[in-house]
Every structure is written in structure tokens, then in C-alpha cells.
């Protein structure tokens, strides 16, 4: 419980909601609980109560705000274009400022993301501990973390490949596959490595807006003096970097955001440069990462890029409902993340696909943990090209 606090939400954005409820079925937490408090409409209503009517932030209100996966499925479903993503980020930032959110604790954990070497060292340690079964399962760590992988070499100056923080430590093989595919299309690749330690997406989601801004500025500085496109193979990072322009509201940041592309989006625009090879004999279902589908809204390009390389592409039948990963969400709300994943797994089961393609590391880890065979679209394309060469 608290006294009245100002969430500092844009009143126009908040007032845009007409309480029609059309977003409810697109919200994973409403879908698995049927509770209004865990729906976008309920969350917006509670934001209004707190901001406009001085209602205290009770345990229930906090639960409503903190259980949001920030998938933004509600946003693309909303005919009134309520910018829910910004509302919830700002709400969390205000709660952090007031010191009434567990996000304050997360700041410490997220600090590690800024130190790649530390992160890799920690990963090696976690990996060994995990294999010795010393890590509790509900922490949602991937079953096999890499102990050590070679760094991505620089092969040219055409494009940047954003390597990031956790992903570089945990899924460097995806970067490697992406780099090979880009090379096959004739693009020389410069990995961003130490130039940009972390994009700050998780910080922004947790409401740590100062950290998020600082990291954004650092990223922009790291890749400045250059107008090469910045290609991203993690949908969450891509969405966050495309948002720098809005967040920092400077010309420099806007120009930076213009340079950011999802790697699938980039390849879909350069399909003619990719080699023509026999497709892999696989039926692949696409699991759209929320930040590709609902935030960047370029999920169709994954299909365009992937379809020449696999024999069958299948659509899941759940309208792109979130898988429950949500960055740090799967660690912070493991039970809810698990129920949401169960729904996704049922849809995957119905699809009968051999492999699920996801362009986001968090989703892949979360689903792989439930025994789903996951691959990044770049790994599939890479494999098809390699098979043709062999």
C-alpha cells in the first residue's frame, strides 16, 4: 500500500481506451486466467485509478502491473491504437522511482548485462552448474548452455550484425549462422561485439528508464560516424533499438533507429542475392516473437525469407499469442509463464510441425525447455545453404 502517486502517464494515451475489451483475447495473462485484473483493459483501468483518482498501489494493483508480459499483443489488437507498451513501461518506471517495485532489485541483476566478459564467464559457470543439476529448474535456464564458443569474426564492412549481451553469451551459434547467411548473400559482416554491450531492452521493460537511456546513448555512440545498416537477429533487441528515436527524441537517435533492421526483414528485401538451393525437407511452423509481430510488425518478412529454404511452412492457429517468455518474465513469473507456454505447446502440437522457427532467443529458450525443437530462421537457412554446398 502507498499514498497517491503520479504515474506520469500521458493522459491522452490513457484516455484512448474505450474499454471495449477487444484486446482481451490477445492477452496471454487474460487467456490463461480469465481475470479482468490481468487483462490490458483491467491494467489500463487500474492505471487510471492510480493516476487520476489517487488510488493506492495495493498488492493486487502491483500484481496486475507486474504480471504483464509486455508482449504488446493488446496493442496490435486495439482499434483505438492505445500505446499500451509505452503506458506499461512508464508505469513501471514510476513504480521504480517510488521504490515500490521489485524492478529495483532487478537493476542489480541487469547490471551484469553490460559486461560481456563477465557474462560469458558467468555463463560458463552456470552451464557447468546446470549440467551438474545445481540450478533449480524453475529458473528457466536453457538445458544446455554453451561453455565456450569462438567469437564471430569480422568479414567485411557492408553491415553490422548486432551481437548483444545474453544472446552472445548463450546463443552465439545463431549469430554465426546469421553471419554466414549474410555472407552467402554477399554482405560483409562487422559484428558489433564490444562496440555495443547491451541494447537495454530488459532495462526498459523493467522500468529502469535511466539505465535504458544510458545504454541507448552508449549504443548510438558505439556505432556512430557510419551509416551502415544494423541487423539484429533477436526480435526484442531489434524492437528496442528501433524505439531509441522515440525514447531519446533526438535527431541522432532517430537516425540510428532508421538503420536498424531485423535480419529476416533485411534478407526479405534482398532475396535475389541469396543462393538458390534445394529446400530442407522439413515442415516448419513459425512462432512469431511478439516484439517482431506486435512491435516491429515485420513478422511477414520471416516467412518471405524462410520459405524458399524449407519444404513446408505452417502457421500456428493461435493468432500470434505470446509464448510466455517475455525476457525476464519467465524467470520472475515462472508459474504464469508456464501456463502461457502450455497453450502455445498445444497449438504447436496441433500444427504437427517438425521444427519451430523463432527469431528471438528468449522464446526459443523458453519453448526448448518444454521439449520443443526450436531453431532460429537463420539456422535453417544456413543449414539449407550448407547442405547444397556439401
Amino acid at each position, binding site marked *: 500500500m502507498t499514498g497517491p502517486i503520479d504515474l506520469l502517464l500521458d493522459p491522452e494515451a490513457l484516455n484512448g481506451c*474505450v474499454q471495449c475489451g477487444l484486446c482481451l483475447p490477445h492477452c496471454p495473462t487474460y487467456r490463461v486466467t480469465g481475470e479482468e485484473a490481468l487483462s490490458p483493459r483491467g491494467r489500463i483501468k487500474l492505471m487510471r485509478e492510480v493516476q487520476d483518482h489517487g*488510488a493506492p498501489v*495495493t498488492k493486487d494493483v502491483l500484481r496486475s502491473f507486474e504480471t504483464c508480459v509486455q508482449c504488446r499483443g493488446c496493442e496490435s489488437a486495439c482499434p483505438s491504437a492505445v500505446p499500451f507498451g509505452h503506458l506499461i513501461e512508464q508505469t513501471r518506471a514510476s513504480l521504480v522511482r517510488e521504490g515500490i517495485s521489485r524492478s529495483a532489485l532487478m537493476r542489480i541483476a541487469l547490471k551484469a548485462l553490460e559486461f560481456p566478459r563477465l557474462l560469458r564467464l558467468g555463463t560458463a559457470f552456470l552451464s557447468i552448474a546446470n549440467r551438474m543439476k545445481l540450478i533449480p529448474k524453475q529458473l528457466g535456464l536453457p538445458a544446455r548452455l554453451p561453455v565456450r564458443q569462438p567469437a564471430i569474426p569480422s568479414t567485411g564492412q557492408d553491415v553490422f550484425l548486432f551481437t548483444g549481451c545474453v544472446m552472445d553469451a548463450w546463443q552465439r551459434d545463431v549469430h554465426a549462422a546469421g553471419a554466414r547467411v549474410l555472407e552467402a548473400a554477399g554482405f560483409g559482416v562487422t559484428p558489433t561485439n564490444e562496440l555495443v554491450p547491451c541494447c537495454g531492452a530488459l532495462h526498459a521493460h523493467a522500468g529502469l528508464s535511466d539505465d535504458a537511456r544510458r545504454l541507448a546513448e552508449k549504443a548510438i555512440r558505439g556505432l556512430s560516424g557510419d551509416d551502415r545498416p544494423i541487423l539484429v537477429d533477436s526480435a526484442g533487441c531489434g524492437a528496442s533499438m528501433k524505439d531509441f528515436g522515440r525514447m531519446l527524441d533526438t535527431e541522432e537517435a532517430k537516425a540510428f533507429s532508421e538503420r536498424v533492421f531485423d535480419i529476416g526483414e533485411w534478407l526479405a528485401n534482398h532475396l535475389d542475392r541469396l543462393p538458390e538451393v534445394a529446400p530442407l525437407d522439413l515442415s516448419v511452423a513459425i512462432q512469431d516473437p511478439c516484439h517482431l509481430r506486435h512491435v516491429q510488425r515485420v513478422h511477414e518478412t520471416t516467412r518471405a525469407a524462410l520459405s524458399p529454404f524449407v519444404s513446408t511452412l505452417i502457421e500456428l492457429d493461435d493468432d500470434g499469442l505470446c509464448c510466455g517468455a517475455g525476457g525476464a518474465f519467465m524467470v520472475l513469473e515462472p508459474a504464469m509463464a508456464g501456463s502461457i507456454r502450455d497453450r502455445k505447446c498445444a497449438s504447436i502440437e496441433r500444427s504437427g510441425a517438425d521444427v519451430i522457427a523463432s527469431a528471438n532467443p528468449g522464446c526459443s529458450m523458453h519453448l526448448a525447455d518444454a521439449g520443443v525443437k526450436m531453431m532460429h530462421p537463420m539456422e535453417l537457412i544456413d543449414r539449407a545453404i550448407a547442405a547444397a554446398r556439401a
Partner: protein
Amino acid sequence: MLRDLRRALSRERVRYGAADRTLFAHDASVFEGGLSGPICFPESTAEVQDIMRIAMQHERSVVPRGAGTGLTGGAIPLGAPIVVAMTKMDTILEVDIANGVAWVEPGVVNLDLTRSLSELGFNFAPDPSSQQVCTIGGNVANNAGGPHCLAYGVTDAHVLAIEVVLSSGDVVTLGSVRGESLGLDLRGAFVGSEGTLGIATKIAVRLSKNPPAVRTLLLSFSSMRDAAQTVSDVVAAGIVPAAMEVMDREITNAVENYVGAGYPRDAAAVLLAEVEGLEGGVEIDSQRIVEVAQSNNAKSIHRAESEAERALLWKGRKTAFGAIAQIKPDYYLHDSVVPRSKLADVLESIYEIGARHDLMVMNVFHAGDGNLHPILLYDGRIAGELERVHAAGAEIVRACLAVGGVLSGEHGIGVEKQPYMEEQFSSDDLDHQERLRRSFDPMCRVNPGKVLPEGHSCADIQALRSIPTGVWG
């Protein structure tokens, strides 16, 4: 009471925090009910029975609730009742294709049911624009309609039997899956009773076969009158389209901003018409509709070229109410039915009433069955606007009644249309309705204060207290 409820359900499924009680004060309408009592999320018929019995012991009323998309305040709490939220009872229990019947729990989402049947080539015909979120229980309670009910009939025609928990806590099954029920058709009385006769806990719905062929036409006109006349002429020509929906220019633009489906932005009115059936038949019917439209000066004629385009056009139409906030933060939506031949005249008087009250009016409606949805736009933060909206609304309702219209096409009466019931029904009519209600619920404990106007409802017996929202803790 809270302790009893929690013992019967579980701690997590009985909520009483200020946050939840505030959230359940609303549905999708402008009406506020004040803070609710405890909110229960039952998972079985037996739990609903327990809730009813506990409510009776403690002399509390109950209000059933589905997804809360109702537009007339039917699910809002009056007098801090126990809210019985049916959203966790969302299992499709049994699908019997041979007999064309499915048993579902009331919390099943309308579109989920149709989706799960699509592999089998069937659907649940009522398709309210809110179908992606509203529940079958809410559809039954409000006898919901939808664009495609023009050809197939509203919910009533698609519900065979209903298991109901009465206020006594007893369970009865109304109707029968074998078609005609013996004795009085109490199932028919329950459909459309807006939660005032009891709580539906299981519903047997009729399954409809998917049509082999569909044609979707998007027609635009330079005047609303031409569009309305086209609708009237199509039906007069003996064509029964599956759906005929009209939108005026303002709402079409709001919708197009959201979906980008290719709706023309400059036409005074657009008509979305759909015909379904055998391939040969739909071709002939769509051609005839085009001819009728041409004779009414259609500005443009377009046929949806793919399933994807058709889906996008419908997505636009079905999200129309939600798109309004692009223009103004609040809206008040009416729902009345007028004879088709009077559509054009009534629409003109509606725009005129809006102008006189200095309010923006938009129209998007199920034209085929004369079901109007005039929308009055306002900003609730501006003092006096809502009063103007209510004044204009009253005039609109009277204008519809004056040409032989009725109070509600599909959204029900709730608390919204209560004051007008006496204009539509005689005192004897209302007394009989109240007697029917009392034979189900003698103490008027289920959803009191709704539908029947004061004086003809026993709502007053329990002094409906209303706790304003904002009183937390």
C-alpha cells in the same frame, strides 16, 4: 460470507481487493455500478450452486458476468452483489457432429468455438462483432445478434438446451438437444433474460455447416439515403444475403486507419454485403445485388478477391466501435431496430438530432435487419457533454419508436433502456414479465435492478446500495 465463499471455491478464486472490485464495476458501456461485492471465479456447476446458496444465506444478490463486453450495463453490480465471473468455465465439453450439437461451458469465447469447429466444416452461427472476446453465456443472456444473423437468425435460433443454476441453488435443464422440448419452452424464456432468471452453467448449441461458397461485396455511395435504399431494395427483390452492413464516412475512416483494408475514404456510406451458399447461387445473387446498387447510384463496386481481403474487411467492420477513440475518448452507443423501409428517414433525423445537440454522430449498423447503432461521441472530461449525450439519446430512441421501431436489436435492456420499457410495453405486459421472473427467482436475487423498470421489478426490495468507485480498501 467471504469465508464461506473461499471455503467453497478457493482463496485465489474469490477476490475482494479494492482493485478487482473497481474493475468489475463496469462492462463495455458508460454505466457504472459502484464497487462490487466479492468476485467469484467458479470452475464447476457445483461451485455455482454453492455460491448461490451462500448468497441466499447472507441475503446477498448475485450478478453473472461473461467477458464484460455488454453495452447496456447488464453485468454491472448494483448494491454490491457477489459477482460470478464465468470466464474460468471455458471448456468445450462435447462436440456431436452427427447430431449437429455441442455442449459448452458458458465462459467459452464465441470465436474459439467457431475456430475449433472449422476443421470439421462447422461453425456457431451468431457472430456478434465482439465475437473474438464475448462468451457464449453472455450471448445467450443477451440473445446476441451479429452481421450474419440476417440469414441465420440470432442466438435464440442456435441454442437447444441450457443448464441453469436457479437462485435456490437448484439445477434445471431447460430445452432439449432432441429439438422440440415437451411442455413450456422455458429455454426460450431464458435466452435474452440478461442474467435475471439464473446462471447458465452449460449450453447445448446448434452447429451450422460452413457454406461452400462466399462472395463479399464492398459498395460505396455518395449519400446515406442511396445506401439505405439499396439495402431495402435488395431484400424486397427476394435476395437473402448472409450479411448487409453499412458504415458512414466518419466511422469508415476510423476503421480504415486501423485495418487498412481498402475501404473507400471519400464515400458518404459504404455497404458491406455478403452472400453464401452454392457456387452458382452466390454468383447470381451477388450479380443481382450489384444491379440493385447500380440502380441506386452506387459510386464504386468492389468484390473481395481473396479470403485474406475478406477477412480484413470484416475485421474492420467488427472493430468499428473500438476504433472510435481515435476521434473522441468516449462514446455512447444506441441499439434500436426500425422497419427497413424507414431506415433512410430515421438516419436523417438521427444526424439532425446530433447536430442540434452539438454532438458528433456516427452510424455503423446491421442494415439488413434494420438494426441501427447510432454512436454519439463525447469527451467525458468536459462538463455537460454527457448530459447532452443523454438528451440526444432519448430523442433518438423516441424517433425510432415513433416509426414503429423497437428498443433493442441485440444489446439488450440492461440498465440503459430500462426507463424506456414503459414506452414500449403496457403496464400489464410488464407485470407478466415480472411474474415470469419471480417464478424463477422469487426474491429477485439474481441480477436485480436490470431490465424491468422500477415498479415492475422487485429490485427495490433490497435497497440497492451503491458504493461509489474510488473508495478503496
